[in-house]
């Protein structure tokens, strides 16, 4: 028996390789459900899930919502705008009020690093981190791992380079933890102004030139340049960034092997990635999106067993 996940999913840093593998292995058979005419299983019938999104999101929020609905949970979406958060209610008060309405799980996206953990320590419901500041985005890390494993058959020994805005990227951090734990070789590549200080201490290799990274890697995970988080002059201009660090077809054609291309989205086409790469034969960007629903279904399934309320409710009904 594999180790269960625990009450919450806050980041990949806290998980063991066995726990990560359990999520990936659980997600594989769940993919089939989304291919059915009736895309629904009764597994989470009666569970109530709140999606608390304090930050803009299309893909992640919709992906979680599909996952929840395909598992038959009841879901409510709460955004910062139009809720009591805009009246100054604190995060904990919001969550406690939701708990008073008898919910089972909270999926939270928040601009502050550590918000998910802060919440998880204060409420009884399962908490799933859907991205907290520049800290972690564990379900994105897991779906990237599944996409790589689908393609290569294994993660161990593969060379994966995270390219671009590593500094602001919670996706990068979740990837570095997850890939290292499963035995991949990990590198980062970007302008020094967009790499965190002492990134080498996380056990990753650093490439200053994208050409060198492409020559080394089996796969590139191209990160989005997070322009909305850049309040200082991190790069001279978008055009110059594309010229020096852009993942272009010309650069990939010089690689000694086919390089798999991932991108967590949304893409800045023509900045960190060119259109003919994003839409090219080695791109698995849409596979990532498909896998995202299965990964989130797996996480919901695995965490739901660890909710005392659900077990109590079931006993009461029996």
């Amino acid at each position, binding site marked *: *028996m*594999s180790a*269960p996940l625990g009450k919450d999913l806050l980041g990949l840093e806290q998980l063991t390789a066995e726990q990560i593998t359990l999520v990936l*292995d*659980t997600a*594989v*058979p*769940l993919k*089939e*459900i989304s291919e*059915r*005419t*009736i895309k*629904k*299983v*009764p*597994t989470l019938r009666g569970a109530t899930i709140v999606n608390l999104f304090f930050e803009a999101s299309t893909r992640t929020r919709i992906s979680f919502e599909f996952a929840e609905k395909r*598992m038959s949970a009841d879901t409510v979406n709460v955004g910062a705008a139009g809720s009591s958060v805009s009246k100054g209610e604190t995060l904990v008060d919001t969550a406690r009020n939701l708990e008073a309405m008898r919910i089972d799980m909270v999926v939270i996206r928040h601009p502050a690093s550590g918000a998910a953990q802060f919440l998880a320590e204060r409420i009884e419901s399962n908490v799933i981190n859907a991205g907290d500041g520049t800290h972690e985005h564990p379900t994105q890390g897991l779906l990237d791992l599944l996409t790589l494993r689908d393609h290569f058959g294994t993660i161990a020994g593969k060379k994966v380079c995270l390219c671009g805005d590593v500094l602001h990227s919670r996706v990068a951090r979740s990837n570095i933890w997850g890939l290292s734990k499963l035995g991949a070789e990990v590198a980062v590549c970007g302008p020094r102004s967009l790499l965190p200080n002492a990134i080498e201490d996380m056990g990753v290799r650093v490439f200053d030139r994208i050409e060198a990274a492409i020559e080394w890697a089996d796969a590139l995970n191209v990160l989005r340049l997070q322009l909305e988080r850049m309040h200082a002059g991190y790069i001279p201009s978008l055009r110059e960034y594309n010229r020096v660090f852009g993942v272009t077809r010309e650069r990939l054609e010089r690689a000694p092997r086919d390089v798999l291309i991932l991108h967590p989205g949304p893409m800045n086409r023509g900045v960190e990635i060119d259109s003919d790469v994003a839409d090219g034969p080695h791109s698995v960007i849409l596979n990532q999106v498909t896998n995202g629903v299965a990964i989130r279904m797996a996480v919901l*399934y*695995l965490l*739901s*067993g660890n909710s005392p309320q*659900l*077990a109590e*409710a*079931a*006993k009461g009904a*029996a």
Partner: protein
Amino acid sequence: MPNSSSIVLSARALERTVTRMADEILERNDGTDGLVLVGIQRRGVQIAERIAARIESSEGVRVPLGALDITLYRDDLQTVGPRPVVGKTLIPIALDGRNVVIVDDVLFTGRTIRAALDELADFGRPARVGLAVLIDRGGRELPIQPDVVGTHVEAPHGARVDVFVKELDGKDEVVLTSGGTA
């Protein structure tokens, strides 16, 4: 430990039993037209494969074969401990208007079959659904009865009936183990 084991079916007896089950399925269905076999994960799948192989050798027709994992349809998910492992479900064709035969290794409480019927309904509306099991050990907790039975075993509630198949276990055998703590 006061456990005592006895062999219910040897390898050769298991083969003969599967052969008879295949013939009975053909008889009930009046041939292979519209017939679909759906095995329940895990060992029901191997039993279904053998029934299909037997039908192919006697009728010369390969009947469609599916696999059903009922984990996500279980009625005890909210009370059991760590989440059970989810297996693969594969229904290769539309089931509307077909004669589906669910195949499982051991029929006990009937709860697995209840879950399987729910899951099958999500794949379409078969003309008829039947149930074929290698072992019927009694002890039903739901109003579910098999149409084709390999063999009946009188097994008290605390006993175990283990079906071993070559593909997964390296040998073909059915063993009844009684005693232990009920």
